[in-house]
């Protein structure tokens, strides 16, 4: 039996369910006029951000389906993608073949790291997000050990442009000129003078279709069952731990590919920092899109990218025009990135309690009717 709600209650409930996107819409509504940017500029910037970030954010969807929350461990996949890019830069493989080769190199590394991460997360059931976050930091240490001390010394690197002057270790920044915008420029059309990279959009669409198809497969249904209730899924004969590991592996592999797509758009690899920032920003963007720890879909991905990055674009200039300091906008956007994650996590718990209360009230009403 459903509780009857008035229109006001319905509106309030809708607002409560979409607090974060509404909050961002309000911020953007104030920020856009203050920034003074033209609609054309904002649209072209948003297109760039969508093609750059969407792939990474879509990679977060599958672990959510399996009830493992937001996979902060996607940084592991990002590291694997970066290792692939370092190798192709050293070998001088450029363009689409370079990107594909980097993806192939990253795949076994991502699978291995994803399997290992999944194993650990199985030992920390119920605390997956914080565990995967810390695994990211731990793995960053190993990544640094390999890239800073192993490459050039143990792993052969030929290019002087990559190796530090001391003879081993990779430089702070790697120029990805060979693959820069190779996917984006593969097939481009101009809409009102704004370049639309169709090939990248096609790749993102393929990934979205894969996720939609995957949800309908046996494994996808198993993941959904595991995400809803692990014990019930186990009783139904689903290999819970195995399914959870696979979800993390898929996410890590896609994160690796996403990082390659992201970096081909930027054209420069920040060897020791790129991957650390990407996990936080992808999670924040997904949450801004209205996703929760337990539920996310493709609509959340695109809404999140648009709103989150719109704020990123307008806030420095809005801050400059408002106070006279662009730095204020920078502080604001960093503050909002972390703040939105906090708000979303708190709201998720509040909503969960509220839904439990509503379910209780519905049950009570049903029993009253029966009596």
């Amino acid at each position: 039996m459903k509780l009857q709600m008035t229109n006001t209650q319905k509106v309030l409930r809708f607002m409560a369910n979409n607090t974060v996107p509404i909050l961002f819409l309000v911020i953007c509504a104030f920020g856009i006029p203050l920034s003074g940017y033209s609609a054309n500029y904002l649209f072209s910037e948003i297109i760039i951000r969508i093609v750059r970030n969407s792939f990474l954010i879509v990679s977060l969807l599958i672990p959510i389906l399996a009830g493992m929350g937001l996979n902060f461990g996607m940084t592991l996949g990002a590291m694997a993608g970066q290792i692939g890019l370092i190798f192709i830069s050293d070998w001088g493989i450029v363009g689409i073949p370079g990107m594909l080769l980097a993806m192939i190199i990253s795949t076994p590394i991502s699978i291995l790291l994803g399997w290992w991460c999944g194993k650990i997360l199985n030992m920390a059931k119920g605390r997956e997000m914080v565990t995967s976050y810390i695994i990211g930091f731990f793995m960053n240490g190993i990544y640094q050990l390999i890239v800073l001390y192993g490459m050039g010394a143990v792993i052969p690197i030929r290019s002087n442009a990559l190796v530090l002057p001391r003879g081993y270790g990779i430089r702070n920044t790697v120029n990805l000129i060979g693959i820069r915008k190779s996917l984006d420029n593969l097939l481009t059309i101009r809409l009102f003078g704004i370049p639309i990279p169709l090939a990248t959009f096609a790749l993102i669409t393929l990934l979205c279709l894969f996720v939609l198809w995957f949800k309908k497969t046996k494994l996808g249904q198993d993941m959904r069952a595991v995400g809803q209730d692990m014990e019930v899924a186990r009783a139904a004969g689903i290999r819970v731990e195995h399914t959870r590991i696979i979800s993390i592996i898929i996410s890590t592999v896609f994160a690796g590919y996403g990082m390659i797509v992201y970096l081909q758009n930027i054209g420069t690899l920040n060897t020791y920092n790129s991957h650390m920032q990407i996990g936080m920003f992808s999670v924040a963007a997904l949450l801004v899109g209205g996703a929760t720890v337990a539920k996310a879909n493709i609509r959340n991905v695109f809404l999140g990218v648009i709103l989150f990055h719109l704020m990123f674009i307008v806030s420095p200039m809005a801050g400059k025009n408002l106070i006279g300091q662009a730095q204020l906008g920078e502080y604001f956007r960093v503050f909002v990135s972390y703040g939105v994650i906090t708000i979303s996590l708190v709201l998720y718990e509040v909503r969960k309690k509220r839904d439990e209360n509503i379910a209780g009230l519905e049950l009570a009403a049903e029993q009253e009717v029966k009596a």
Partner: protein
Amino acid sequence: MSITFNRKTWIRLAAIVLILAFSVFLFFIGRQHTVLVDNKTITVNGTEVKALQLVEVQVNKLDALELAARDRDKFEVTGQTHEVKVVYTDSNWEEHVITRKFKIPLMQDMVMILIPALVADAQADQSVWLENYEPPTYAMTAAPAEETVITDDLAGLITEL
């Protein structure tokens, strides 16, 4: 742990082999090389070959370059087999076009086409007019100052304390 070779295992092995083969293919077709085109007076087998006054050089379908005597320029190409087209006018104002195919060693970053040598004997083996080129060491050596590697965003805070 024992591995049983059933149909599934064979399919997986075949997939891995296929991916490895595809990687090798990507390596071959995606490898970038720099082709320098050089129009300087050179000595081939003890004979001096003069630089051309003006010559147009094109590699594959890339934009053609015009070189005067003592000029050097470059093309960036991917893959191993390429075609060079040289167009020049002789002293009788007669236009000549020479088209030759050449192959670059896979791991060679830079090669140099000696235009006067190619023009002097268009049918000669590519080893006569194409040579591997190693950039001078001073151009490749990085600045002596050691680059500071920042691996931790909080490192700045720690040193300031």
